[in-house]
């Protein structure tokens, strides 16, 4: 009988790894704390750089999961390392044993209210990147309904590359997500002025630069190099944003109908807690530490434990999927060698 491969996390990394493991003849078991698969991508409307629907990606992954054991709405209460694998007690009281363990635990979105000066949770006109995607998906958000949006701002790097917030790392996807969302808002509100406040733009991937140029040339989106210092509310229910334009060397102030905070990626604290139970190495930034950052990104310091996706650091969707496939193959080889 095949031994379990336990996958912690049912986001796109966990789904793709399970799909590949099934193709390789293995027996994946997914443990997911949410009541549905898809992780953060399930909250997203469209994905850069082609603005392809996030649901299409998930729709492509789901059929390949037939045959996988999936525990939704379930967390891991305890995790023990045994001589022949790993033993888990789940929140419903059941127990699982697996020869191999894959951390596909993803990331946690930075709590934007921690940047108090931006007023998330204080001012109705301030939302996050995730709130905006949900609104794109559902059309429901009392903060956005029934109001024409004529001026919109995006704040990049909210909780990323921010020592005061305790997160020095770049979240990698926010620059492109902000540009994508800015264009999507321009599609809905063609006459709106849209401003992106950035400290620098990290557009490293295929088509990213074209996307950025298009945002300026075709959509007239304004890019202002400078961090927002504070946000306040006006009498007419808008928000005043103060920032410094570091290219012109001048402070600026603009009143906006909507301000979108690009909340960054943080390590998933549940993953860190589980990792500590079996003495997995954790990096200084709080993400799980790969055996090495070049050829061993999916390998851990323990036999039979593998990583995929944003549990080891901030990742894009293609990187996450590639790591999931790589981890599935590595797990298959590990199980073959163990026979």
């Amino acid at each position, binding site marked *: 009988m095949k031994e379990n491969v336990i996958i912690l996390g049912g986001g796109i990394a966990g789904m793709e790894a399970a799909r590949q493991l099934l193709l390789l003849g293995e027996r994946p078991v997914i443990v997911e704390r949410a009541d549905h698969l898809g992780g953060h991508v399930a909250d997203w409307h469209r994905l850069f750089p082609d603005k392809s629907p996030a649901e299409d990606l998930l729709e492509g992954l789901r059929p390949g999961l037939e045959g996988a054991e999936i525990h939704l709405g379930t967390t891991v209460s305890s995790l023990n390392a045994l001589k022949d694998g790993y033993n888990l007690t789940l929140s419903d009281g059941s127990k699982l044993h697996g020869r191999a363990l894959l951390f596909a635990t993803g990331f946690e979105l930075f709590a934007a*209210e921690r940047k*108090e*000066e931006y007023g998330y*949770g*204080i001012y*109705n006109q301030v939302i996050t990147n995730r709130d905006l995607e949900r609104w794109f998906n559902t059309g429901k958000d009392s903060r956005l309904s029934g109001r024409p949006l004529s001026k919109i701002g995006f704040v990049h790097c909210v909780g990323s590359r921010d020592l005061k917030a305790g997160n020095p790392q770049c979240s990698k996807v926010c620059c492109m997500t902000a540009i994508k969302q800015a264009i999507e808002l321009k599609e809905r509100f063609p006459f709106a002025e849209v401003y992106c406040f950035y400290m620098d733009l990290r557009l490293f991937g295929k088509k990213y630069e074209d996307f950025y140029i298009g945002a300026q040339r075709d959509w007239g989106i304004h890019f202002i190099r400078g961090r927002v210092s*504070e946000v306040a*509310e006006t009498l007419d229910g808008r928000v005043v944003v103060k920032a410094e334009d570091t290219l012109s060397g001048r402070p600026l102030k603009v009143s906006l109908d909507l301000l979108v905070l690009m909340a960054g990626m943080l390590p998933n604290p549940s993953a860190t807690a589980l990792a500590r139970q079996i003495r997995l190495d954790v990096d200084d930034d709080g993400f799980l530490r790969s055996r090495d950052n070049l050829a061993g990104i999916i390998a851990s310091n323990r036999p039979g434990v593998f990583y995929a996706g944003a549990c080891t650091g901030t990742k894009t969707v293609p990187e996450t999927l590639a790591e999931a496939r790589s981890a599935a193959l590595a797990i298959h080889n590990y199980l073959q060698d163990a026979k």
Partner: protein
Amino acid sequence: MIYQGKQKIWSDYQKEIPDDHWFYVRSCIRQNFFPASEAYFVKVVRDLLGRDLYETPHHTTCGGIAYHSDTIPQETAMTIVARQFSLMKEAGYKNLVTSCITSFGNYCEILETWREFPELEARIREHLWKACRREFDKPEYVCHASDVIYKLRNEIAARAKFRLVNKETGEPLRVVEHIGCHYNKMFPSKGVGGAEYPYVLCGMVESWGGQVIDYPERRHCCGFGFRQYLVKANRGYSMSNSHKKFESMEPFRPDMIITNCPGCPYFLDRWQYVVAETQGKTYGQGGFGIPVFTYEEVAGLVLGYDPWDLGLQVHQVAPEPLLDKMGVPFNPETKYLGLNKKDILRPSLPSGLKCF
């Protein structure tokens, strides 16, 4: 505005404020600007509410004003502060309460610096011993006097004779609260409510019946900024800061401004006169300005003390419209009578700002 969001932040930034037994240190400048504020702090806290509040005539400046004006190095300020601590030790107190916001910031900054660099604290101990053969203990708690009034706000409300409510309409008075920069911008965790949405004055206003206005330039400095004002050539910059705040708060039609800093009420009060004279613009109703008060003065009004005993006659902006709104009685004939009914002379009236 999502009020619950603010409440959550306020709950994250609560500080421990002792209930009793304070060693009180006065400000260098407040008794000139707002002569009764400190006296009424002592009167309310010690005489009315029965708390133990001690002060000594041997207390001096904390050195903060000179340090922030770049005229003395921090180690000099530290040695002065060390001497204040030695006075507190001598008197048998462990809870320091400062009248001045800059003193509060200065004490906090020095204690944090000593925590980071204990060798510096050791050197200052040596300096103090060599200079005056004194030794000191660090305070267990450092609070600002507005923290104490915040702590006692409900006791004051229970004794209130007047509330921050318009007696004609029954509506809460619309209050601008302005926090001194050195209260919470240096160490947000040391101020009640933090740096972005401070609660120390909001708590008093709410407790006494008023409504706080959240206007766009709420966080902006009053314009004092030490060298902005102390260097004469920079005073236009000082006034432009205050002007920016007035322009921002004006559409919200505030009835009054409450502050907790020595400089802020002075500048927000006096610059209204300068703006009126130079621009012909006033920010209150009917040609008046927006009255500016210290929190002790507001506590005194709520408790029913005579406005002229509270020193409101030395304000530039006339407080009378606010007294009328609250229903606080006052005698215009005694406005310029000082101690023992001595005539303190009437000031010339400005042409652009309506005053009595």
